[in-house]
Structure formats: C-alpha cells, structure tokens
C-alpha cells in the first residue's frame, strides 16, 4: 500500500471514528425533564433470541407482557396520591450474550433513564447486571436466578433481591421428602442420580450428595452429562439396571422432556421419579398426558389458592398458553410486589427498594414478605397430582399437598 493510500485510508477511518463520536455525543445528553410525566418508563433486556430464548420465552417474557397489559388495562400504575400512570415499556434483546445484557442495562439506566428495570432471564445474566443496577440505584428483583450465594450478593448489592432460592434449598427439601417416604416404606434407600454439566445442575447435585448421604441414602448411580445430550437411552438403561427405587435428574428442559419420553419407552418407572427444569412447563403435560402423574420436580403451586388460580386463568387468556408451574407465578408476583411498593411509596427508587425489603405483599403466589432480600417461602419440591403440579415440600407450608409415592406406572 503506498503512503498516500495509507494516509487516505487513515483519514477515512478518522472520519468514521468522528461519526461514531457524534453518535456517542448524543449519548451524553439523554432525556431529561421528568416533570409533567405522563407515564412510568419500565425497561428490560431479556433473551429474545439465542440459546436462552427458550427459557426466557416460557418464564420471563410472557409474564412481563401480561403484567404490563394487566396494569395498563386498569388505567396504569397507582401512585400514593391516587393518580394512575400508564406503563411505557422499553424492551431490548440481549441476544443471550452477557456483554449485550450489560450494555442494554447501561442504556436503560443512563440513556433511556427509565424509572425501573426488570431483570433478565438466567443466573449469569442477573449477576452480570447486578453491579450496574446497584451503582445506578435500581432495585433488582431477580427471579430466574438460583444461587446459594444470595446472602453474600445481598451484602454486596443491597438493592438486589433473590426470589428463587438456592440449589441447596431444592436438594435438601427433596432429601427430606425422600427420607420421609423411605421411613414410610414407599421407597428403598438407594438412589440413581444424574445431573447436567451446567451451573444449575452442578449446584443442585453438589448440595444433593451430602443431603442424601446425611438422610441415609446410598447413591448407586451418579453421573453428570453434557448440556448437548439428547439421547438418554444408555443412562436410563443403567439406572434401570440398579436396584434403586428413586431416580433423580437435575436436568434442563430439553433433557427433562427427553428423559420423560425415553423412560416411558424403556418402561422405567421407579417409585420416585424426579426431573429438573421443564417438568412444570405446559408442553410437558401436553406431551405426556396422564403419564405426568406422580412425577416430581422443582416448584409447584397451592391448588386451592384462588389468587393463583386467577393468575393462571389470566395467563392462559392473554398469552394464549398456560403458565409454567415453577418460576412463572414468582415472576408475576415479583412484578406485583413492585407495583404495590410503588403504590405505597411512589416512584422514588430508594424508597421502593426499602419497601420491597420490608413490606408485605399480596401476590398471585400468596402473601410475600422477604427475609434479608430473599424469598424463602417457596415450593421446593412439587409433584404432578391429578393433572396439576402441586407443591409438596416444605411439608409444613400452608397449602402443601402430601407426596404420593410410589408413583403410578406408565399407561
């Protein structure tokens, strides 16, 4: 390349950077004038595309849309002075990339200057945006983040809230349910356990191993499989070859569906059959009809709770599909908490954060009070009973159904 061409190229690139700088300088002004507001601006960035779209599409996006629709149909968010302001939504796609999620939140906070930011889907993404949310003073009501380190995160980011518990909660509750069933003679003390090689699966299995051991169970099969696994024939055959009465899989939706299908094929129906994420999805019930009976998983609902029933009906009506039985209602409830906090203290974010931490809220998931910024009152174990996925543990929680073991065989 000759010198002149080089210089021309250089000048061109300088001008390109100049154009970019112009674009950026627009960033430094941003929208101001919050007076005379006609709406409450609420923004969120979730995975509309990419690898996480499947999870976000079931739990997060429908509930965000449903809530906005519900609130705006009622005339908007109620403020302490009795006036109502409609919600204006700013929606971004994080494309299942952490970097995009971080930048989208920066944009929502400093460019769009929204009033509130709803959290993204997934543990990793909620952690990625946590420092920003804390720094910008936004309450972060993380739902789809299962982490045992929530107490530590609350200390680090005091405006963060963690609503779905930690891996250990689910595992120890399961171990307790199993111990009770064994003592009642429904199952023996051997367990075949598999888990997906991903953050969630590892968290649960790491907590399950000691919990099961402490409860006096013997792990006769314990394997970890990669996320990309689609054929579980070998695993199921080996589990079936053991004498274990319990099969526990800490799996993601694709695995959960495949495990369910393939265990029916090989006629593997142990007395206790526990699957991971996805067993509470509507499509799980559609695909397996009455065979879902007795299958256990995370989450659940209280079938006699009228608010929950009303929520599920609305979800079906507006979204056109039933809600899933685990995180959906919590997601919707988290928004109701925000809504009620605003109703009590207005749009001041600090006050809302304070109210979220200390207040008591009436939601679709029942009455909620957070402990140390965490929701502890959750269904850790659920079971399909009579076509509904009901919560069975904690057994002493109000509305708990009794676990029914052994599970009936496949039809």
């Amino acid at each position: 390349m000759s010198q002149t061409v080089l210089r021309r190229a250089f000048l061109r690139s300088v001008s390109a950077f100049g154009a970019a700088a112009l674009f950026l300088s627009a960033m430094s002004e941003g929208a101001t004038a919050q007076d005379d507001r006609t709406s409450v601006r609420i923004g969120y960035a979730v995975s509309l595309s990419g690898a996480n779209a499947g999870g976000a599409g079931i739990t997060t996006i429908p509930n965000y849309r449903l809530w906005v629709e519900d609130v705006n149909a009622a005339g908007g968010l109620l403020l302490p002075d009795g006036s109502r302001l409609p919600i204006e939504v700013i929606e971004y796609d994080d494309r299942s990339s952490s970097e995009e999620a971080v930048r989208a939140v920066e944009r929502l906070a400093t460019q769009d200057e929204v009033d509130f930011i709803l959290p993204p889907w997934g543990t990793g993404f909620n952690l990625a945006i946590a420092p920003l949310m804390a720094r910008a003073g936004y309450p972060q009501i993380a739902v789809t983040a299962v982490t045992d380190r929530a107490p530590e995160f609350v200390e680090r980011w005091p405006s963060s809230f963690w609503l779905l518990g930690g891996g250990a909660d689910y595992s120890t509750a399961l171990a307790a349910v199993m111990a009770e069933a064994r003592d009642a003679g429904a199952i023996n003390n051997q367990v075949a356990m598999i888990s997906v090689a991903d953050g969630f699966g590892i968290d649960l299995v790491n907590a399950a191993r000691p919990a099961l051991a402490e409860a006096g169970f013997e792990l006769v099969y314990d394997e970890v499989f990669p996320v990309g696994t689609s054929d579980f024939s070998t695993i199921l055959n080996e589990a079936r070859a053991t004498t274990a009465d319990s099969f526990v899989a800490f799996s993601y939706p694709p695995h959960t569906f495949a495990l369910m299908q393939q265990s029916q094929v090989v006629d593997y129906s142990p007395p206790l059959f526990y699957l991971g994420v996805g067993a509470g999805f509507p499509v799980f019930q559609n695909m397996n009809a009455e065979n879902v009976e007795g299958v256990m998983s995370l989450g659940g609902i209280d079938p006699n709770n009228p608010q929950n029933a009303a929520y599920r009906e609305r979800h079906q009506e507006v979204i056109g599909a039933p809600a899933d039985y685990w995180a959906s209602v919590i997601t919707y409830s988290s928004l109701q908490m925000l809504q009620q906090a605003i109703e009590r203290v207005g749009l001041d974010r600090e006050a809302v954060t304070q109210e979220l931490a200390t207040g008591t809220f009436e939601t679709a998931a029942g009455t909620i009070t957070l402990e140390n910024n965490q929701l502890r009152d959750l269904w850790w174990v659920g079971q399909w009973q009579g076509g509904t996925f009901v919560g069975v543990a904690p057994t002493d929680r109000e509305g708990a159904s009794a676990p029914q073991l052994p599970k009936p065989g496949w039809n």
Partner: protein
Amino acid sequence: MSTTVAFILAAAALAGLAVAPLFLNAYGIGLLVGMTGYVVLASAWAMFSGPTRYVSLATVAFFGIGAYTVAVLSETLPYPLVLLCACAIGLTVALIVGLSTLRLAGIYFVIFTFGLAELIRQLVTWYEVNVTGTLGRYIFLPFEGIHIYWQLLALAAVTLLLSWWISRSRLGLALRAVGDDEVVAAHAGINVSRAKLMLFALSATIITLVGAIQAPRWVYVEPAIVFNPTISFLTLIMALLGGATRLWGPALGAVPLFLLFEWLSANFPNYFSIILGIFFICIVFFLPQGVLAKIEGLRRPAGKVPPEDKERSGAA
C-alpha cells in the same frame, strides 16, 4: 513525510478517544467498550486471516480462554499477572493448534476452527465439573466500564501498530505471498508453516487478551457465556465488511456494524435475527472485499483492477 503526519494524527485520535469517556454516560462508555472490543477482535483476526485467507472461526475459543483464565485466577494473582497468564495460555493453545492444523486448507480449516471452540468448551466444562466441582465462576474485580475501555483502547492501539509494522516487515510480505500461492512462497525460501504459525499465535494471543480484559464486566462467567459462537461470526463479518487486507479495514467494519447492531436490537428487538441475517447475506454479495476496496475500486480509473478483486472475479 506522510507517515509522520499519519502518526501524529493517529496519536491525536488516540488521545481524543482516551478522554472521550470522561464526557459520556455509562451507556456511552458501554458502547465504546463494545466497539473497541470488536475493533481489536476484527483487527487481530485480520492480522492472520487477511493476508493468508485462512478463515478462522476459532476467535471465540481464544476469547473464552482469556475470560476463563481471569475468572479462575482473579482472586489468587495480581491483575497484571493474570493478564500475563492469559497471554501465555492463549499462546500455548495457539501454538499447539497451529502446529497441528496449518496443513489444513480451505473449508477444512474453517470447520476445524469451528469445532475447536466447541471442544475447548466441552473440556473446560468437564474439567470444572469433575475436578473443581463448580461451573460458574465469579469475577469481583473493581473495574468499571471506563477502566475496561482504557485497557481495550490501549490494546487496540498496540494491535494496529503491530499490524502496521507487520505489513511493512518481511513477515508481512511472506504472509501475503503465502496467501497468494503457498507453493511459490515456499520455493522462494519462505518457511510457510513458521510464518503462518507466528501470525496465528500473535493473533490468537491478542484475542485471548480481549476476552481477559472484558470478562470482569460480566461478574459471572460460565462456558455457555464465554464460548458463544456468535462472537466468532460477528468478528469475521466485521473484518470482511471493512476489508481484511487493509490496516484500517477491520476497524472500519467493526465500528459501523457494531452501531448498526445496537440500533437494530434497540429498535427492532423482535426482528433482529432476520435483519442481521439479511445484512450478512448482503455483505457477502455486494462487498466481498470490504468497503475500503469498494471505495478504492470506485475511485480507481477503469481498467486497473485491484489485486484482491482480480482473485475473486478473474481467472484462477
């Protein structure tokens, strides 16, 4: 001397870019971080793939290695040492991969590099699950966007300077010769494998550093997050858009494309994939040699064909 002028201008631009974030809000800085990150990725990618025409999809493999190294070591080693370790690991992997693959040509190299990223991801996962017993890792480094931006900007300057220096060096000439005709290059006395290996390793090391520098921004790191294959493809298309054989080409492709993606995902979040796909197809169709070559082609008096265009349209 025009070179001197160019250097003064470049230094001034660099100084301007360095102080720019002081006047920007967090989102503006976030944009600069993303943009600069891709400028470095695309430039480093083009450093090897531009002259040799070996299309590498291993970008994310090295990017992920960098990010993971920081996640593993950030709490046990001082930060500069962590970066050094990331460099060393990236370099080692690049040398091993380079030694075993540089015999592969054309599509087989593309497929290999694509598979490599997946293999490394599987191995990291397996290691974490079976040896360390955790999968996600946390990075609590006290860096804000602006610190990451300054590091990336410095790396961008170094990368462009290296590219410029290589393009004028014996090595640069060797690579262009290799890209044209490996047999002729070898018979002219060029150690083809060594030239390719050196550049591949250098390019991979820079890419590793980008991953290492950007990782603290995400706080939480797991294989699915850092080995996201889209990064490889975006890097590739940015470099192609600007022109992979020019010094400023990749940067010139990365900046507008990055801003375009940002605009699309903000304004058409639901149609992002479709528009991105169509745009990708259009670039391959209408700008196979990049914008710079296109502009130069338009300016060039008729009849004079720039060399790269000839390669595509002319006789084999």
